[in-house]
């Protein structure tokens, strides 16, 4: 009796929109889980809803959070008292060029905008990877502590330096993997396999966590079975 009260009205003081929200969410959740039995129209319905809502959400956020503050407001400040940022005309033109992709006759202009962002991202990726993933990792490997800490820790540190070398050699393609090189490459595979095992375990953990999260919603927020 009390439980039915909870199910349809929520705990005292809960606004109706929240309770309704839980119901809608729960029904959609069940629609998706119906896929586990087999592919069916309920699942397809939920999936198509998901695609549409996701696209609309993204559009709205882009407009309110990026285009208005960065482009529309600077060019058309209205009576806010801000000066017009004329320089933003250029990215405005590039943005329009980008959208010309939809018009076959003018779609070649979209390459200008594409050239701009591809050039920028390429350069930014070069410096970012060079500093954060390349030189910083070289430095970190060189400075792996080999003098402080206990014997076990030092051994493990030496093992990890060797591991880095072995993995790099495994991905070396300019010589046949024979003899010493082959041996080191083999060692590289072992390191990779242990890492993939760790990755496997963590991925299982992640997927299971998502299910737990959904069940916490269903059992607590919707059904009020658990605290």
């Amino acid at each position, binding site marked *: 009796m009390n439980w039915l009260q909870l199910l349809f009205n929520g705990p005292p003081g809960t606004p109706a929109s929240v309770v309704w929200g839980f119901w809608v969410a729960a029904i959609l959740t069940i629609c998706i889980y119906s896929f586990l039995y087999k592919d069916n129209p309920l699942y397809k319905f939920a999936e198509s809803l998901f695609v549409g809502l996701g696209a609309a959400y993204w559009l709205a956020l*882009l407009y309110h*959070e990026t285009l208005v503050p960065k482009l529309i407001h600077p060019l058309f400040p209205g009576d806010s008292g801000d000066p017009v940022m004329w320089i933003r005309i250029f990215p405005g033109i590039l943005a329009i060029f980008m959208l010309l992709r939809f018009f076959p006759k003018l779609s070649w202009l979209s390459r200008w905008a594409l050239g701009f962002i591809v050039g920028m991202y390429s350069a930014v990726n070069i410096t970012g990877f060079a500093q954060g993933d390349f030189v*910083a990792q070289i430095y970190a490997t060189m400075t792996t502590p080999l003098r402080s800490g206990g014997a076990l820790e030092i051994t493990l540190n030496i093992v990890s330096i060797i591991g880095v070398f072995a993995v790099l050699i495994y991905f070396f393609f300019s010589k046949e993997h024979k003899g010493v090189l082959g041996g080191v490459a083999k060692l590289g595979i072992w390191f990779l396999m242990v890492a993939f095992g760790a990755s496997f375990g963590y991925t299982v953990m992640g997927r299971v*966590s998502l299910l737990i*999260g959904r*069940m*916490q919603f269903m059992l607590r927020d919707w059904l009020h079975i658990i605290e």
Partner: protein
Amino acid sequence: MSQGFDLRRIDRRIIFLLVLIAVVWPLIAPLRLPMDVSPPVQRLYDRIEEIPAGSIVMLAGDYSPDTMPELQPMTETFIRHAFRNDLRLVVACLWPASPPLVERALLPLAEEFGKVEGVDYVNLGYMAGGTVTLLGMGASIPNTFPTDYGGTPVRDIPLMQEVENFDDIAFVMEVSAGTPGTREWVQQVQSRYRVSLGSGTTAVGAPNFYPYVQSGQLVGLLGGLKGAAEYETLLEYPGDATKGMDAQSVVHALIVVFIILGNIAYFAARRRERAEAR
């Protein structure tokens, strides 16, 4: 081949049902297994504890609803940690779905700790651009995020008067589900602008980031729901992550059993086939 009961021919749906039971049962009847804390989580916690009260820290929310069960507890616990230690908080997101998710954790906690929007915290919302946005923030956060999530110009926000770029940010907590995420923050912000960076990631991503932990590029790392639960333990405020740990344990055990049983069935069948072939 056809003789007797073949373990390999179990209907998948029976496996699905077993998984469901393994999740639901410990949620209803908790086992309360003990919780240890791993070094990367401990280091993250310790680093945040060192930050003097009043400092400005940043929470970067880069995730979407699909990984919410893992990452929302991290967001909640970090905000709680920051407010408890009287740190002021700036939220910035590179993923469109993040601002409302962070807001959901932020508003109740602000009320609980009596924090004032615009003075103690601000949610700058979402900005497109990924890596380039990060570099823009390195030059100027107000220019990169001209308004907050609600549309208020940042120059009207008292807290933002003290924030020009990462030089004014004592610590960044990056909650990351993918790209752009932890990797981009390390490459573009931590490396380039000397920022103290910690990260909470999905379990799927966590093993990739251990090199950054060893090199000190990340001061600490929360990996998946377990990382979140350890963080909750350190803060002595058990939440959803801690409550999920029993279910997590049972399902992991179930999957280990599946792997072992599956392999036994496989090798038994192979031996049988070989015997038949002979």
